[in-house]
């Protein structure tokens, strides 16, 4: 049965009506109209739907609305703006760290979580932190350089 769920979304108190088992990703994209978190597999295997839940990287596709309720959710739309970009966004643009860009949102959110817990990660730490995020275009090395650049910013 649908129910009301309250949570913080990109800094704003938000209430949605959803099925308890409905995925956070479905609610973000369908109900809230925030499209940056992307559906790649729905299985928690690719990382395209990564968002921050209380500052930690989580797959929105296999997080139920019931589990997300009461938490602080940040999507790419809440990470930074053109006027005030997150250092990662500025660095991804400078490094042109994408081809199709479909995985980019998840890459940025996973990297943001990494930099929160480790502001100056080494290259290997970055690669390991991003290992759950898949890219098929082969932009991995550009992404690693962008994260390194953002960490130094």
């Amino acid at each position, binding site marked *: 049965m649908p129910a009301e769920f309250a949570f913080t979304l990109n800094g704003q108190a938000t209430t949605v009506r959803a099925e308890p088992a409905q995925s956070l990703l479905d609610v973000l994209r369908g109900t809230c109209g925030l499209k940056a978190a992307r559906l790649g597999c729905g299985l928690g295997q690719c990382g395209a739907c990564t968002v921050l839940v209380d500052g930690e990287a989580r797959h929105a596709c296999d997080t139920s609305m019931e589990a997300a309720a009461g938490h602080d959710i940040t999507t790419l739309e809440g990470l930074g703006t053109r006027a005030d970009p997150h250092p990662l966004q500025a660095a991804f643009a400078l490094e042109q760290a994408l081809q199709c860009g*479909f995985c980019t949102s998840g890459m940025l959110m996973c990297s943001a979580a990494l930099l929160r817990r480790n502001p100056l990660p080494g290259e290997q730490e970055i690669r390991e932190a991003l290992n759950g995020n898949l890219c098929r275009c082969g932009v991995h090395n550009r992404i690693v350089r962008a994260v390194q650049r953002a960490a130094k910013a």
Partner: protein
Amino acid sequence: MTRPPVPEGLRAHPRLGQWLAVAPDGRIRATPGKVDIGQGISHALRLIVAEELQVAPLLVDMAPPSTRHSPDEAVTSGSLSVQHSGAALRFAAAHLREACRARFAQRIGVPTAAVTLAAGVFRARGERAGYGELADAGLLEAAVDTSHLAPRDGRASALGALGRGDVAEKVFGEFQYIQDLAPDGMVHGAVFRPRTLQAQVHETVWSRLLPRLEAIEGVSQVVRDGLLVGVLAEGEHALAQAAERVTLAGLWQGEAEVPQPHEIAGWLQSQPLDSVVIEQRQDQAPAAARTFRADYGRGWLQHASIGLCCALAQWTDGGLQVWSHTQGIFNLRRDLALAFGLQVDAVTVSHAEGAGCYGHNGADDVAFDAAWLARHAGGRPVRLQWTRQQEMTNSPLAPAMAVRVEASVDAEGRLVAWSQDVWSQGHGTRPGRGATPALLGAWQTAEPAPVLMAVNQPPNTGGGSDRNSVPPYAVPRLDVRNHRVMAMPLRVSAMRALGAHVNVLAAESTMDEIARALDRDPLAYRLEHLAHDERARAVLQEAARLARWEEPGAHEPGVGRGLGFARYKNTGAYCAVVAEVEVQQLARVRRLWIAADVGLVVHPDGARNQIEGGAIQAASWTLLEQADLGPAGVRSEDWETYPIHRFTDVPAVEVALVDRPDSPSLGAGECSIGPTAAAIANAIHDALGIRMRVMPFSADNLMREAQRQGA
């Protein structure tokens, strides 16, 4: 420069206004027919237009292609967008520039030579005018005169430093992919089908399943047509529940006969074959002293894009509108018209970008699915997105291949004879080319269109499985044949580089093997046989220089280096790769050094990005990937059952571009695939002394070959 050939698209659509339009404020609108599939082509095309017009690139708007307003440039494939669309736009922009210059000169009363142009402003005798004032509708009606393209005299492209315009949109989460479109009144749809082309439906299962689907909250309609089951719902959550119920029901009994993973070559060779000669040469040659013969191959591969195939469709007044991430809007339009019995003019296909596309994936099929289901939606637009499992199991596979090379050298070690035989299914079942629709769903309705056997394009337009089957080296006696396998238990079609992946592996492994057997340096041995091709030698030497090939480094145990080279399609970009591979339980590529010659470089960063991305994708195919097939179809249905390389698997990559400003631009997106596979194989041999000839070079296959070869 050597003028690029006039592309087919421009011959068919010679009117200038078909390619370029000018707003009164001077903004330029370009309408090419090639589409963005993650490669950033519209940015390269924008740079070409801006350079020829001598305006700032940001003044050029790129119109998303639609059958409403775009020229038919066929399919965005084969690394031809810069070659075809880029050349067409270069000719068109040069015409527009010179026509505006002439008009301005006439207005002022000066010879055209007295008119200067900078930053989009024509000047003479203190007067000035921009494109917006000079280019009226009449001027744009002219047929493009291709004589206006000026020689470059060695001038490199000056605008390439600017980054892609869509990058910021994507980094700030503003960009709308096709998956994000949500027109008013939209309803969600799903289509379920067996994983094989033909199957039996268990009708008793269906009679139990139907009410269970209709009972899901939010489901508005369930449709059945032959093998297809369609569901319309108000939200995606209801469709996810429907997918679960269909999967558990076991509705279809598949019947594909597919070989075991280690019996693929034998299977290919034992099917009915359509054999053709690709190239033969019987020049005078010294007697053969030694002969090298070996078999190479790969299994079926999967596209495995990170995004899901998606389309929107809407029926209005007997017409059909479709939004698709297809590679060919006109081809798709044609086959949708065939499938639904419409005039082509009643169908509009507009392109909207999806996730990265590396060949003929399910984009066209999901467009059929959306259109098929939208007939039941009462005029509402239907959004249809495949699930990950559908993405992996419905999309065409990249064909398996077997390649046999027999090469002979004379007493001095020079190549005297080379034969190459290729066994593979055709590499294309694309829509828009036959008398009946080549769309998966159209083959699975109650009145199905016939399944079309995969074909190859003719060799002179790039071929298919035979791509790069003719070696680039000087050899007096040549015999290259392609054997098209006339069996298709599961659908196959084009994937990046087509046959070049295996053909280049085969040729370059052979060259490496001969050089080692003769105790010659593999680089020097190749160069000796490339005296006729300076550009080929240049990229090989550049890759060797980057990798310090000639320096005898300390040989680490289990670490090796290998070389691979090809000119893509034998007519496209040149690419040489040096790989450094470390082998323990499994092989890991540590570094790749790549040199490429793509003619005049339009956008250096974009070209490097494509070449590196292609190499990283090729390393994943080569070391790791093979579809898991069974009688019920594709079993590798997600990222656990079809793993691809991850961040810790990916090598460091260095790319050098050999700029050739006086040569026509060549596509960059596929040239590194074959050379990377070959360089990896040769590096594994350097590390272990084992020749890996059949991909993937997985831990299991390495172990098997190590035992077989007694290393």
